[in-house]
């Protein structure tokens, strides 16, 4: 791959003060992206999360040179986006990437391959994406999942260092999603940098090592997946209170690390940023038993972080 031979060590993506304003027919322009600074290193696998209209697609469009920023700068492997696309350093599976319905799968791959200066490996890419058996089929006769695999095949043609996937599994059934991510795992294993936007938090949780969360056109969280998960909700500690353990509830409510304390009969549930301390308090002197610690779900973090911004 190019990155191993290139002398430059610029990050895969570098965004500085990125802003995108859209004109609207009536009223003031909308700031779809409202000042994003972000650096993504080579070989990282990053999930780009955010609710609809958060500015994910617009940001990715600017990274790919499909839209020009209103303000700020974008560098992809140290190059302007269009240059990075032209040299095959970056490629993408777009949410709305159109296909020509009356072409066959193979014609589509051959057509896109022909736009790259070096002979892109048509047959190899068809094989790797499991499309060899469908090569002669018209695009219009392919299922949604098959069309998405075709878009993925097109993205692999330039052998990109950076692969961007915008909602890659939208509209796929469970099996197709699983197969897609299995193929993605292989591709990431080849040392590609992968950035994907998704609605499925479970996909981000399982596949990404870093999560970047956007809402209202701004970055609201950025860090390792585990850290993001625990950042807002922390961990939840559940236990059964022993007789006379009630006085502990007051202590827990006063504790600065306890975000929420709920009692239901002899069950207590504590949401905390310091589960060790809470566990110690509960177990000390046999005040509680049946202790259980769970980490917060990404869903929680997502809802909490994105709502904070829209408020």
């Amino acid at each position, binding site marked *: 791959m190019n990155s191993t031979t290139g002398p430059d060590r610029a990050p895969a993506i570098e965004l500085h003060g990125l802003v995108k304003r859209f004109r609207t027919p009536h009223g003031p322009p909308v700031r779809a992206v409202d000042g994003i600074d972000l650096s993504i290193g080579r070989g990282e696998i990053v999930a780009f999360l955010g609710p609809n209209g958060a500015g994910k697609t617009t940001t990715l469009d600017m990274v790919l040179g499909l839209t020009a920023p209103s303000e700020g700068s974008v560098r992809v492997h140290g190059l302007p986006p269009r240059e990075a696309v032209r040299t095959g350093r970056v490629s993408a599976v777009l949410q709305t990437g*159109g*296909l020509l319905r009356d072409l066959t799968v193979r014609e589509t791959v051959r057509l896109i391959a022909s736009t790259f200066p070096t002979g892109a490996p048509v047959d190899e890419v068809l094989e790797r994406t499991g499309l060899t058996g469908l090569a002669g089929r018209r695009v219009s006769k392919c299922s949604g999942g098959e069309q998405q695999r075709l878009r993925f095949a097109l993205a692999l043609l330039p052998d990109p260092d950076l692969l961007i996937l915008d909602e890659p599994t939208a509209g796929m059934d469970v099996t197709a999603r699983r197969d897609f991510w299995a193929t993605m795992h292989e591709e990431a294993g080849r040392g590609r940098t992968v950035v994907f936007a998704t609605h499925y938090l479970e996909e981000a949780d399982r596949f990404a090592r870093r999560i970047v969360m956007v809402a209202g056109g701004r970055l609201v969280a950025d860090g390792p997946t585990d850290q993001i998960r625990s950042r807002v909700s922390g961990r939840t500690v559940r236990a059964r209170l022993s007789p006379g353990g009630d006085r502990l509830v007051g202590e827990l409510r006063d504790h600065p690390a306890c975000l929420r304390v709920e009692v239901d009969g002899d069950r207590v549930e504590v949401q905390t940023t310091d589960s060790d301390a809470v566990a110690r308090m509960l177990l000390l002197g046999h005040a509680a038993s049946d202790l259980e610690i769970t980490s917060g779900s990404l869903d929680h973090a997502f809802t909490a972080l994105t709502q904070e911004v829209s408020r």
Partner: protein
Amino acid sequence: MNRPAAVLNTTYAAIELRRVSRDLVSLFFIAGLPAVLYLIFGSSAEDSAVRVGDGNVAFYVMVSMAAYGAVTATTGVGGMAAVERMQGWGRQLGLTPMSDAGFVVVKTFVSFAIAVVPIALIYLLGGLTGAEADPSSWLISGLVVLAGAAVFSLYGLAVGLMFRSEGAVSAASGSLVILAFLGNVFFPLSGLMLDIARFTPLYGYVALARYPITGGELVSATGPTSETDPLWLPVLNLVVWAIIFAGLAVWLVRRGRGRQ
């Protein structure tokens, strides 16, 4: 960095041509229908051998029908180019090294290559069924039909950009029938209708293609008239319409970008 000049991507062009060759309905309207119209109104008409300027009626009708077929082809290619790009194919191509200029080169080549089909077919039929004129008239009229058809790829492009649907492109191709009647293509007009015709888009194009035999002389349903168009008139008509279509297309592209 110096960008390479946009050269023709032959693989893309070949796939595009194969795509069109599979679309038999479009091919019928591009080549089949005008060929049949020529056979009915040109070669088998009673007056097919009657002289028109330096040629005969069969030649005059042959040029008209070839022109109609050619503009049907270029309008369709231009329109589909616009619709494809807006339906997401443009974004897909945006992820490749292909430049906008490269895309235009492919589509221009394809639209000429397809426009050649009705011209070649109908000129061949003409040669076989009694169309007569000087060799130079055959050549020049054929080249004018081909080159002038490019203006109507801009017409298709503008309609495609404006209405953004395949249906609109079909409608644009269909509207050429009306423009052909209004433009003195199918049936010789006279009087007020002819005065109106001079302002319509197909008038200048077809008048220029016939110029090698007519020298601008107008034909009525009953034979030659004393009226003559100076050469500048059809040229001006074609140039003005080319500017209108191109301006409209540019304006629509800019409007589309602003909304992105």
